[in-house]
């Protein structure tokens, strides 16, 4: 084992029926280091993490932990915890109805007796030392998601952890919250904790990490110092090919952009729903790609949900081709040629136990009506067509969608809506939590569809994605539309300043 | 979350409301001079034809015209019955008439009644309590009912006795009495029990049990069903398999309770025997109350009612009209 290493994994193999998830992967984590684990979906990141935390047992290989002479055996998450390996998952796994302190100490003592006063005091001390804005007796659910995440980290840290695994911790946090989390991570690093950081956000990797290990197709690509690996190279290593696709996208900008004269396909006036947004006006033209931008919680999703009738619309009018239409429920919107890919894929998008085929035809089926079921043959035809078209990686059209990776699930949902041949496609965070390759695929697809005349609204947390794809951006702050940017104004700075309040223009 | 809790509360109140409707006492009208106040606690009249007849009989007897002011409470659950009894005690009834759902648990509430000077009369069912706590108990003698039926069966002098025995809900007084007599005869006279099963007073189950015996190909010539419903289910199975039954036919059918429709089956010679379980206790109770009001003492605490057994060869239309329930 290396001098400063707290964890060393050597030659790890793991297979599942039909898949070789890990093939001879090495991974080394040093004391006081933040180490990014990068790779596309299906590269083997989660499998590696799960081997390390005892969720899976490895087929082959050795794991060494600082302070243990021999290779350690990890058969369960409890084993991992005892060895000082703690994990904080993307989804909060704490109990929201218990207090912060209870969450931090639950299941950690074997004694029946619990000194509540001491427990609360201890918890407060840890929270304070880590600068986490929560008090021990507060109910966990009353904290923001970011603070809940930090409490989870505090729990892990207090359990005397040497290795802290953060699995996509930032995907539901806004920028300020991310900044707080990073501060906490740096504090822990100072204390000598080794942190494994799994994320899809490249920016964040470069902001906080020291080293990067890249996996691809279950194999180790390499371990790099952050300063030795520029972004473009990182992406190309993850994808396994040189990356000039990024710049390609720009040139594919839709031809429709220039025809400013064309009339709006959909228009909304004073639209407001029960989800707490202020009334807003809205229009979209044929072949146009626009976007809603703003911080998390600024009301981006709520706006498009109102257009689609996903929330209860309480006021305003919607016009299609100049004629007023009534949208009170999603089916109305669908009948008017609107399609909506929701923000939360798991909750609102997939129907987990159903097959890929059934998931693809679902929306079209609903449009066709109760008494006109799509024949199995047709359904297979549609499914196979879109599996091929979008490059969906699935064993067959009969595979349950829940067993697909996130990116492929997203493609299935996209296929579902494309199959209805919508005039207006709303994509709410279509690229969240999916790998870089798929992200680019989706962006390309958006521009291609627009060039064929489809109107598209594209929402993403990553501004550069929006800049690449959208020709017009609606900016939101505090559940209100605060500005609109197009043409020359479409720059990172302008977006920032509009979000922040617009005064920066003067500088 | 809130919504769900609200919904649960709503559902709960509805359920409670419903049980309350079924279980709560019908309010007695305000005091009227000269009337004897009685509180009557009975089982749910929907339980069986027997209970329906019993309830009807009580309602006809305890009227203002007969000098009573009656309140009724129905439940198949002991605790609800006890609650009703407590309420009657508070209301200050003169007599508490009780057909208990369960034999146990009545001591304290009956002591309360005694303390208030309320006289308790049990009907149809006895309880496990000190006899000093009640004035009288009017019951059917289930053992005797069973014995009467078995004696009748012996009197038929069949060449051999191969019996399908359909029992009521195990452990109930009726089941124990009616099974006891048959079991004794089986042991002493060398009768064969082809099957002995509980059909839980249920016609459908009885039909399935008899069907099962028919399917097995075993022969039998007596169906001893502990109530009319089960006898009816058994007969439905016999009809299906073309096994003749009734007077002078292959299988002897016996039932209990004397439902009107069952007695009609006897009259039509489709069944052979039906044993009575007398539901008409009201006149007995009336006599007791009259005696107590007159200051007389009762000669005995436990009063056993007259009960008959009807034979298909001797039954008349009059019997059907008079004893059918």
């Amino acid at each position, binding site marked *: 084992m290396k001098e400063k290493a707290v964890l060393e994994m050597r030659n790890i193999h793991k297979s599942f029926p039909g898949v070789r998830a890990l093939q001879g992967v090495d991974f080394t984590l040093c004391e006081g280091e933040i180490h990014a684990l990068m790779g596309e979906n299906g590269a083997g990141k989660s499998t590696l993490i799960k081997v390390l935390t005892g969720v899976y047992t490895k087929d082959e290989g050795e794991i060494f932990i600082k302070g243990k002479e021999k290779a350690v055996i990890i058969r369960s998450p409890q084993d991992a915890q005892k060895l000082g390996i703690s994990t904080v998952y993307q989804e909060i796994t704490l109990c929201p109805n218990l207090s912060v302190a209870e969450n931090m100490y639950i299941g950690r003592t074997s004694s029946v007796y619990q000194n509540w006063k001491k427990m609360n005091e201890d918890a407060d001390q840890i929270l304070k030392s880590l600068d986490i804005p929560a008090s021990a007796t507060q109910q966990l659910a009353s904290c923001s998601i970011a603070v809940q995440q930090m409490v989870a980290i505090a729990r892990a840290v207090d359990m005397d952890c040497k290795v802290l695994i953060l699995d996509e911790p930032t995907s539901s946090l806004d920028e300020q919250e991310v900044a707080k989390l990073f501060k906490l991570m740096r504090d822990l690093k100072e204390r000598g904790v080794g942190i494994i950081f799994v994320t899809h956000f490249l920016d964040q990797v470069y902001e906080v990490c020291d080293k990067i290990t890249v996996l691809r197709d279950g194999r180790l690509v390499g371990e790099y110092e952050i300063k030795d690996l520029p972004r473009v190279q990182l992406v190309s290593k993850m994808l396994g090919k040189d990356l000039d696709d990024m710049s390609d996208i720009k040139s594919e900008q839709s031809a429709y952009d220039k025809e400013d004269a064309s009339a709006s396909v959909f228009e909304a006036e004073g639209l407001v729903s029960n989800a707490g947004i202020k009334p807003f006006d809205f229009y979209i033209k044929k072949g146009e790609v626009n976007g809603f931008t703003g911080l998390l919680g600024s009301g981006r999703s709520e706006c498009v949900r109102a257009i689609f009738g*996903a929330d209860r619309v309480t006021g305003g009018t919607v016009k299609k081709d100049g004629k007023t239409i009534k949208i009170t429920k999603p089916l109305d919107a669908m009948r008017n040629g609107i399609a909506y890919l929701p923000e939360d894929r798991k909750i609102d998008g997939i129907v*987990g136990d*159903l097959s890929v085929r059934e998931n693809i035809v679902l929306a079209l089926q609903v449009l066709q009506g109760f008494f006109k079921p799509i024949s199995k043959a047709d359904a297979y035809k549609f499914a196979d067509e879109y599996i091929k078209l979008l490059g969906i990686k699935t064993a067959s059209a009969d595979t349950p969608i829940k067993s697909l990776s996130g990116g492929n699930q997203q493609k299935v949902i996209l296929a579902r809506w494309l199959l209805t041949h919508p005039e207006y496609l709303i994509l709410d965070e279509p690229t969240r939590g999916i790998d870089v390759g798929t992200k680019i695929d989706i962006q390309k697809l958006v521009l291609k569809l627009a060039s064929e005349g489809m109107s598209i609204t594209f929402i993403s947390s990553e501004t550069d994605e929006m800049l690449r794809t959208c020709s017009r951006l609606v900016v939101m702050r505090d559940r209100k539309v605060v500005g609109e940017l197009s043409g020359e104004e479409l720059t990172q700075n302008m977006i920032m300043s509009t979000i922040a309040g617009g005064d920066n223009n003067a500088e | 979350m809130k919504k769900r809790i609200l919904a649960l509360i709503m559902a709960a109140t509805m*359920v409670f409301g419903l049980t309350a409707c079924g279980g709560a006492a019908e309010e007695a009208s305000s005091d009227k001079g000269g009337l004897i106040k009685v509180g009557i606690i009975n089982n749910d009249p929907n339980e069986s034809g027997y209970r329906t007849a019993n309830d009807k009989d009580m309602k006809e007897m305890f009227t203002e015209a007969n000098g009573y002011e009656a309140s009724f409470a129905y439940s198949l659950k002991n605790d609800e019955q006890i609650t009703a009894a407590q309420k009657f005690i508070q209301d200050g009834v003169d007599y508490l008439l009780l057909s208990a759902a369960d034999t146990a648990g009545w001591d304290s509430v009956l002591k309360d009644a005694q303390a208030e000077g309320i006289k308790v009369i049990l009907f149809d069912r006895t309880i496990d309590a000190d006899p000093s706590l009640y004035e009288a108990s009017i019951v059917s003698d289930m053992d005797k009912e069973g014995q009467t039926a078995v004696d009748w069966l012996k009197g038929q002098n069949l060449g051999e006795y191969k019996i399908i025995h359909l029992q009521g809900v195990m452990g109930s007084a009726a089941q124990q009495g009616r099974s006891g007599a048959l079991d004794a005869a089986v042991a002493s006279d060398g009768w064969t029990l082809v099957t002995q*099963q509980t059909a839980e007073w249920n016609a459908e189950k009885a039909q399935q049990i008899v069907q099962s015996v028919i399917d097995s190909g075993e022969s039998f010539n007596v169906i001893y069903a502990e109530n009319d419903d089960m006898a009816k289910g058994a007969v439905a199975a016999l009809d299906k398999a*073309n096994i003749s039954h009734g007077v002078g036919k292959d299988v002897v059918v016996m039932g209990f309770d004397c439902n009107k429709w069952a007695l009609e089956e006897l009259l039509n010679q489709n069944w052979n025997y039906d044993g009575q379980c007398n539901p008409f206790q009201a006149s007995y109770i009336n006599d007791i109350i009259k005696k107590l009001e007159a200051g007389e003492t009762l000669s005995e605490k436990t009063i056993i009612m007259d009960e008959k057994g009807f034979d298909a060869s001797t039954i008349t239309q009059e019997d059907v009209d008079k004893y059918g329930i």
Partner: protein
Amino acid sequence: MQNKEMKSLSESVMKLFRKQIFIPIAALLVLAVFNLITDPSFFKITLGYNSVGDPVLSGYLMTILDYGSELAILAIGMTLVTAATGGQDISVGAGIAIAGSVVLRVLCGTDSRPETLQAPIIVAFLISCVVAMLFGAFNGALVAYFKIQPMVATLILFTAGRSIAAWINNNELPIISDPTFSYFGGFIPGIPVPTPFFIAVACMVIIALVLKFTTLGLYTQSVGINESSSRLNGLNPAFIKFITFVILGLCVAVAGLIKVSRLSSINYSVIAKDIEMDAILAVALGGNALSGGKFNMTASILGAYVIQFLTTTLYKFNVQSDALSAYKAVVVIVLVVLSTPVVREFLSGLGKKIKAMIHVKEVG
């Protein structure tokens, strides 16, 4: 050569293992083999004549087909309700009492023992269908629109249903003497197979057609798996849940007709007693998740007949009928344990080992 055959056989067995319908088929096989060993005459079917002189088939197997019918019909509706709502209707027994009571009430009119029928049977049946569907709609509305858990919502009718049934007939005991009425629960003259079986088959055909020519299956499963996502795909989850209860109501009416026809009469407090538990068990035996989502209708129906098979077998062995529920409980436990991931993994591991052994043999 033989080894190869064995291998392909073991592979197809493995495939069957994973199929949902494996559970009821396996249960059926176990019961059949058990009976075959203990008494092969169990499978004997004889042609005889009933008391009216019509030909009838009899034997244990016919008994199973006959008495399993109501349960199979109920299993259809219960499967849909389970799939869409992730809960069960526990009021079907009480519903049968109501539906049966309505049939008798219409047929009898004001006289509880009429010489002739006061209305055509079909009219009585249709009215009972409407009533049962209304009660289904009541349950459905509570579940779908007031978001009450199905068990709690249907507890209301479970408690009150039998009293309502008694009230419909003024607490009297109607008896139908017209022999045509007994056809539905017995035999139609000249046809030796019990009518309930035909009715059950008709229901199965109808549901098969409905599942084929409408999107009911997809919609109920979709709603059961992910309500929120179904809504965003244009479905109306509340209405779909509601409609499954109405369909169950229809099933209840059909089962009710058979039940009252069997005895040409009714006993409000015991008719179809505990049948809801058997119907739910049928769904579970079919390998369907009681928490909703994907379902397999054939497996549920098969499950219903497995339960009747079990009941008939137990009767045959003179098991006290009040102990039946205990045996059913054992079945439930076995099922639940078998369907847990731990056991599944063990079984598939076992399969792998067998495969490996065969492989070794081949090499050797």
